[in-house]
């Protein structure tokens, strides 16, 4: 038997803009064991959410993660609204849906870029990020900020999209779709990409469920499960079908995200078409009552789970946030052993890790 060595992967690693450490146990080039060490990004947001008054938590929750920022804010509002329960106006539901899908579009483009970079396709990485800037531009036009959109308030949304903006967004989205198609064709058909991803980090249907995965990671193993099928916000009115793949490997995960990228654009176009007129926000009455609520929303990386408990004061008694990466990280314990050291970055990237979310 070859001698075993322990090699740390991270906390600073080129494929990860964020700090996480994996202690890899190696036998020559083969990984035989792995222990993740997290905690570099732990701030203590859940506690701070108990200390702040409930409307202020929106800003804090939005900063749990800078990529799905808008959706974090919306989900927080959603779970607090459920405490009353408070009905939000239809236009607000549609606007939330549109912004959530815009966030998904830019997040998937970001990930595809990082994936290309992990293979060494640097020019492709640049191209994906160039397209992504267009999505950020329309986000900025409609919400006022590129990254931290901060559009939701408890009861609805804070900003409107007017007709000019709508026309512009539709144009840009169509353009983005065309450009992304050209790049994605390279990604899914290129033989080097296939050589690096097909059969890497395979998880079967049963494993995926036993590991409690979520999001594209789960759907790539053939499980047709997506929070959007619950029909929250405007999703109930839109034609929507989860995208699944059956390979369960890194390639399938990429394929699911490519499909979702197009789907997100289609959903936005459809929602723009159906956007109803009306109020932007309902006014909450008094403090959140003593009640508990759960909200499950599909983020680009999978299901985000918010649990809130009110007690009739301005502060929440408890807020628990489970982000998608929190559910997906344990799968590394199963996927990595047996693979080669050179494949580790791609397999880690294939779950689309977002560490600041995980550790809050």
């Amino acid at each position, binding site marked *: 038997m070859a001698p075993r060595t322990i090699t740390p992967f991270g906390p600073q690693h080129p494929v990860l803009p964020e700090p996480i450490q994996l202690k890899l146990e190696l036998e020559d080039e083969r990984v035989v064991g792995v222990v993740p060490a997290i905690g570099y990004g732990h701030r203590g947001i859940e506690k701070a959410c108990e200390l702040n008054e409930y409307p202020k938590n929106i800003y804090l929750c939005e900063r749990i993660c800078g990529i799905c920022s808008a959706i974090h804010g919306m989900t927080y509002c959603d779970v607090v609204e459920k405490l009353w329960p408070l009905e939000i106006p239809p236009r607000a539901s549609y606007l939330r849906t549109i912004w959530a899908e815009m966030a998904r579009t830019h997040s998937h483009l970001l990930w595809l870029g990082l994936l290309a970079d992990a293979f060494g396709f640097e020019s492709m990485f640049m191209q994906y990020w160039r397209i992504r800037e267009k999505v950020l531009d329309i986000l900025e036009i409609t919400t006022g900020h590129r990254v931290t959109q901060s559009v939701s308030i408890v009861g609805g949304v804070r900003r409107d999209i007017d007709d000019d903006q709508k026309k512009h967004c539709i144009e840009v989205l169509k353009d983005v779709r065309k450009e992304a198609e050209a790049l994605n064709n390279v990604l899914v058909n290129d033989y080097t990409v296939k050589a690096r991803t097909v059969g890497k980090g395979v998880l079967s249907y049963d494993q995926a469920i036993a590991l409690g995965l979520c999001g594209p990671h789960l759907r790539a193993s053939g499980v047709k499960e997506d929070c959007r099928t619950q029909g929250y916000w405007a999703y109930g009115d839109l034609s929507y079908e989860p995208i699944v793949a059956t390979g369960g490997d890194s390639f399938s995960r990429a394929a699911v995200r490519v499909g979702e990228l197009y789907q997100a654009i289609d959903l936005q176009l459809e929602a723009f078409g159906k956007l109803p007129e009306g109020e932007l926000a309902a006014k909450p009455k008094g403090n959140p009552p003593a009640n508990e*609520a*759960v909200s499950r929303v599909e983020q680009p990386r999978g299901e985000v789970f918010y649990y809130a408990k009110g007690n*009739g004061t301005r502060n929440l008694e408890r807020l628990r946030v489970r982000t998608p990466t929190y559910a997906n990280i344990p799968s590394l314990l199963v996927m990595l052993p047996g693979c080669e050291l050179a494949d580790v970055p791609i397999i880690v990237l294939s779950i689309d890790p977002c560490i600041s979310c995980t550790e809050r």
Partner: protein
Amino acid sequence: MIDKLKEISKDQLLAEVKKYADAKARFVTGSANDLGDKLEITYFFNASPGMDLSALRFSVGKDEEVPSMTGIYLTAVLIENEMKELFGLKVKDLAIDFGGHMMLAQDSPVLPMLKTEEQLAAGKKGGN
């Protein structure tokens, strides 16, 4: 209100969790809450495929031991370690034990998620 919430005792935990595992349900997450003299633990499961959430809830004294469910659902390892670190829940037989330093550093506050006296008092007053 959480639909499909089942109150159990901590001794029933593993048997109940096993039922979920046998039915091929997906473990979603857990949540702990400090009730002052006790900790209230809630575990959430999803009947896959689909979006059907159900929950198990039990409360334990702060010095009581709780069995780990990592033998059944490996993925619970993060949440159990977290509750151990942040709430001081005594979890027995963890599959991977981070030794109280998964999230927290050496000089972080100890059991930071426990509530202060004022928080508990404010919660009681508001609740009535």
